[in-house]
């Protein structure tokens, strides 16, 4: 009798489990989103309500806020599982660790990245973003936020065993976020000037492919270090 489950089954079981847990703790989904909206609202108050200035800074503001929000939400990616021991069970299971990790990161992106993408156009309206830039904004967010989740998960996995990982986490992963930020905002700027921006998108897509293939291994290795 073959009792072992296939890779696909393991992947989707873990994905469903993570989604279900998150839906039962709704605050985990809404807090990063509220944080994102609040940070973006602070900028017109701080810079002044001039539409010209706002439309100039809008891509950067939305992206920096998205980056901070996704970083904040990363904290709980492995924390609860680490505390109640289920993370150790995952490490001990016969399924390949990179696959399990990928399921967890995908669940995290579905719960925090996707709502961010959905709410971004609304905030772009509030910041008077150029009409041409909406497509670029959505495309960069759609390609870029999974990269943020994947790279961030490495940092979280490294610091999950530490008691005060919060500030350290930002020190570790913000430098690695910079390339995504640069290419995303230049793509939106280019779109605002009616220039082609598919080159920028291709680079972000390359980052996505690269981190999708390599990051799960780094996350897995980091988790093994953290749980020892």
């Amino acid at each position: 009798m073959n009792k072992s489950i296939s890779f696909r089954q393991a992947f989707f079981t873990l994905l469903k489990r993570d989604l279900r847990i998150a839906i039962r703790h709704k605050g985990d989904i809404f807090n990063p989103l509220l944080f994102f909206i609040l940070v973006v609202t602070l900028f017109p108050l701080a810079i002044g309500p001039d539409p010209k200035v706002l439309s100039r800074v809008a891509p950067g503001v939305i992206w920096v806020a998205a980056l901070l929000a996704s970083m904040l939400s990363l904290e709980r990616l492995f924390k609860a599982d680490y505390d109640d021991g289920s993370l150790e069970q995952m490490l001990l299971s016969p399924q390949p660790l990179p696959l399990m990790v990928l399921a967890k990161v995908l669940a995290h992106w579905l719960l925090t990245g996707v709502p961010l993408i959905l709410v971004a156009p609304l905030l772009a309206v509030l910041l008077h973003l150029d009409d041409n830039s909406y497509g670029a904004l959505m495309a960069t967010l759609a390609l870029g936020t999974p990269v943020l989740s994947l790279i961030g998960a490495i940092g979280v996995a490294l610091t999950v065993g530490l008691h005060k990982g919060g500030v350290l986490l930002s020190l570790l992963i913000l430098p690695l976020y910079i390339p995504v930020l640069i290419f995303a905002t230049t793509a939106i700027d280019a779109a605002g000037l009616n220039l082609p921006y598919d080159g920028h998108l291709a680079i972000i897509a390359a980052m996505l492919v690269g981190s999708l293939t390599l990051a799960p291994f780094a996350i897995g290795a980091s988790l093994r270090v953290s749980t020892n």
Partner: protein
Amino acid sequence: MWKWLHSYADPERAYNLSGKLLPWFAMLAIALIGIGSVWGLVFAPSDYQQGDSYRIIFIHVPAASMSMAAYMGMATSAFIGLVWQIKSADWAAAAIAPIGAVITFIALITGATWGKPMWGTWWVWDARLTAELVLLFLYLGVIALYASFEDKVLAARAAGILAIVGVINIPIIKYSVEWWSSLHQPSTIRITEKSTMSTEMLYPLLINILGFAIMIGAITLVRFRSEILARNSMRPWVRILAKAQGVK
């Protein structure tokens, strides 16, 4: 060959070997940096365009190139430590990190001092400058992560993974001047073809680059030795060593 190499993974032998190498590295570094700096700062001709202020490149270029080389050295030893579980390699990585951070800082500061008279500004958000700043943050992240674990074996492994992930930044720095041709000038030293720099300026620069590399090697050896002692303080050979020096 591998067996011979592996015998130096033993902390005591690594400690003794690095102790023997240290004076040679130190003397060679002092000699090379001395020759290169005096030649570069005093005897090399002034630049027809930049006058004498170009001379800061004799510090800036070695520091900048070594900041990347030190990172690669750190990542390589972290990789060796991670894959073959050799603790000495982990200690070597931990020993290089602060040195790399300082040399990166020197590269940034000298670059800014050079930029003020030449570009009229201390800092621009140019691709190479920004990437070099990110390199400094990566070094600081590795140091912070290493410091925040109580268990130094775990600390070395965690910091090692971060160091390996951060290698992605090195090609970005290297090619930033070619991908984004902005304010920072492209490289003038070529390995495969003729350098676009007059030889009177090139030789002292190359001597200084080599000198900086060996200086980093020397400082790494000092830190490596103290790291070995700190991690092996309970071993009998360290106690004998301490007694012999009359510390106890």
